[in-house]
């Protein structure tokens, strides 16, 4: 069975989703409440993959460029774009919590 991707945005109004219920896969104990999604889960799958590869290559952009088959500045520009996106998400989160 294919792994379902985690929805982070409301399909109806486009606002960010929160976690309402968590359940133990083993004994079915459930916890209900209102939990924020971790910031990194709000990134798209491609960005999450990029972060995973970044960690696995110890943050070595040359290695990462080799892995992706692209040039060093392409990878570095991609990282810059990702940093902007994370900053923007953090800002949104701060605005929502105020």
């Amino acid at each position, binding site marked *: 069975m294919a792994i379902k991707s985690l929805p982070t945005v409301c399909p109806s109004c486009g606002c960010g989703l929160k976690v309402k219920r968590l359940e133990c896969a083993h004994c079915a104990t459930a916890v209900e409440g209102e939990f924020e999604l971790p910031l990194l889960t709000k990134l798209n799958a491609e960005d999450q*993959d990029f972060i995973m*590869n970044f960690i*696995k290559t110890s943050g070595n952009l040359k290695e990462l460029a080799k892995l*992706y*088959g*692209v*040039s060093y*500045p*392409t990878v570095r*520009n991609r990282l810059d774009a990702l940093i902007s996106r994370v900053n923007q998400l953090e800002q949104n989160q701060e605005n929502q919590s105020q």
Partner: protein
Amino acid sequence: MTQPPALPQKPLRTWLFNPFYYVAGVKALAIGLVIIVAASLLGAVSNSHFDGILDFHTGLNAPVWAFVVEGLIDWLCLSVFLYIAGLILVGFRARAIDLFGTQALARWPSIGMPIIALFPGFQETTKAIAANPTAISSLPPGQIAVLIVVTLMTLPFIVWMVALMYRAYAVSCNIKGAKAIVSFIIALILSEIVSKAAIVILFMQMGIIPLSA
């Protein structure tokens, strides 16, 4: 490791108009320098000079080294001005090796121009004009047609080369939008003036251009 994302959908288009997506740094510099030397040697065959960033002229007799030096001056002038622009706009985030390397690689359409200059009849026409510049007004229609055809054929290569130079700058310094375009145009104009002047002064000193010219 997880799967890297798919590469651009149109790789041929990317290779033609943004090869820096795949190649930069030392590799781009090595390929670029080979291209500059190859274009200069082809220029020596067809007597074609890259006597300025945006200049392409034929007819002036010169030793082979002069053609190579022209290419290197053009590449260095633009790279230095763009690197200064990058330093002003993004600081030391841009690597010099990427900028100088991608700028050298961006000159690859310049290989096509001296080949076009071998167009039948063009060499004779430019030699006649070089010997007597006023002869251009009395050229037969056939020779004027050859001049127009060669000019029209080389123009797309110059436009393509400038487009690549811009992309190389944008990718190396990660600059986008109006800031990128304006700074590129300023650097292009300044480097055109400096490279042209440097080549003319060098050629005068070496006796390739008469001092009275």
